[in-house]
């Protein structure tokens, strides 16, 4: 049965975050969220990576169940880690945990134990900073992801296949990404094909489509293109979805169109929580 391989130190998997860093990411999501999309997305990805590290932490040791890559594309295309990991394409999660670019002090609302909320200080590690500059060279970005996958798959043929989580707010400016994305989807381990999930964000939330089974409700060609290069999500991701109240069925695709900030959070949470971790 595909996508059933246990994720362990002997059989790790990898997550590739592919992030649109074009100039339009400096705009806001609209609505009540005043943050530029790039700032919000960087915050979400930093928190998701934090969660991946914590999930692999056993007392004082981080076990390498995952390898992590962040690729950005806009004015330039390449690895998007900040700080000591700058320039690295694929990093074992133990090194990710050891080497955040910096740790910021932030506050979060916590229960005061008497029915109210108080601001509590928290340490917030940063691995990626927001960037919004240039056009949207999606084809070249997918091509780089293909090279990273080839390196990984040449060494890890057996484990749970890699997951690519792609976020964009616009249309490709260097051509139709279908062919190069399908090449990504054609790669596989013995446990199944590489998974590609696409999250498109915009201010048009009224026509938001999340995790569809077919393309009948999609509004335009861009949506259909991204739907066509989004994987059907295997059962390993269904539990994570149901825990946040989203019901998946057999043909559900890892795809969001016209997503809002909540969609972005849910997209990354579901995509990084296959249930196969030992």
């Amino acid at each position, binding site marked *: 049965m595909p996508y059933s391989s*246990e994720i362990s130190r002997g059989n790790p998997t990898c997550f590739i975050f592919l992030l649109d860093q074009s100039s339009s990411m400096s705009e806001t999501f609209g609505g009540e969220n005043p943050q530029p999309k790039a700032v919000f997305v960087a915050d979400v990805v930093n928190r998701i990576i934090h969660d991946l*590290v*914590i*999930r692999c*932490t*056993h*007392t*004082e040791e*981080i076990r390498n169940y995952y390898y992590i890559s962040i690729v950005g594309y806009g004015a330039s295309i390449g690895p998007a880690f900040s700080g000591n990991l700058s320039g690295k394409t694929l990093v074992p999660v133990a090194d990710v*945990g*050891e080497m*955040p670019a910096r*740790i910021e002090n932030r506050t979060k609302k916590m229960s005061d134990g008497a029915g109210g909320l108080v601001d509590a200080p928290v*340490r917030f*590690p940063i691995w990626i900073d927001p960037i919004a500059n240039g056009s949207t060279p999606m084809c070249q970005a997918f091509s780089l992801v293909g090279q990273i996958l080839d390196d990984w798959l040449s060494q890890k043929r057996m484990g749970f296949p890699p997951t690519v989580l792609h976020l964009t707010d616009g249309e490709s400016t260097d051509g139709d990404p279908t062919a190069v994305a399908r090449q990504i989807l054609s790669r596989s381990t013995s446990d199944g094909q590489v998974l590609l999930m696409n999250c498109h964000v915009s201010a048009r939330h009224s026509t938001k489509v999340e995790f569809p089974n077919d393309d009948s409700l999609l509004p335009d060609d861009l949506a259909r293109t991204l739907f066509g290069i989004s994987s059907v999500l295997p059962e390993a991701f269904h539990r994570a979805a149901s825990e946040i109240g989203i019901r998946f069925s057999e043909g559900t695709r890892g795809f969001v169109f016209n997503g809002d900030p909540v969609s972005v959070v849910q997209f990354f949470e579901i995509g990084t929580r296959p249930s196969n971790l*030992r």
Partner: protein
Amino acid sequence: MSKLRFCVADGATEGFDSRRWARTLVKHWTAAVLPITTSERFEHWVNLVGERFKKRWEGQQLSWYAQEKAECGAFAAFIGLSFCEKQEHLFWHAIGLGDSCLFVRRADQMVKSLPIDDPANFGNAPFLVASNPAVHREQACAVFSDTVQSGDRFLLLTDAMAAWYLRSFRTEPTEALNFEELLAKGCDDEVRQLVTQRRIDGVLKNDDVAAMLISTEKS
């Protein structure tokens, strides 16, 4: 007889220092002056032991990720079995939280399966005994007691083995009974071989296992 107590605790890997937490629970539960077999007493006791456990790490310089895990604390499944004599009858009392299980066996019957009695219910992220009272959720311990009959057998098993044993008992009882016999005779090597083989067969999850059998003698 008042201190005839047996228990199994299984630290959850996602917690912080859960192995030590499991050991702490076992050590203190068996050593308590009075048996801890009611929900109220168990909750009070866990809070006390948890406070002491937390002090081990307080004030230490930890990395950001270890610090975060330490703040959440440790988690363990726990199942405890205590015997007491009252008016010439022998009683057993059990308390459990999580997916480590007690099975009470009489002749070819399963008298009690605690806290999980359906093999399908393993693997559903059970509530565990948390070292940090702040992360205690609505946790209901499973509590049960009954009289002991001569020849009764009591098995305490961690989750992977409990799931396999309970499934076997229902579908292939000779497999379960053979396992019990190996335990009863102290055939540790054969038990290890069986575990290895069933893991290869894919019917026993590859996880840490612990098994304990307490037999009462037929008079």
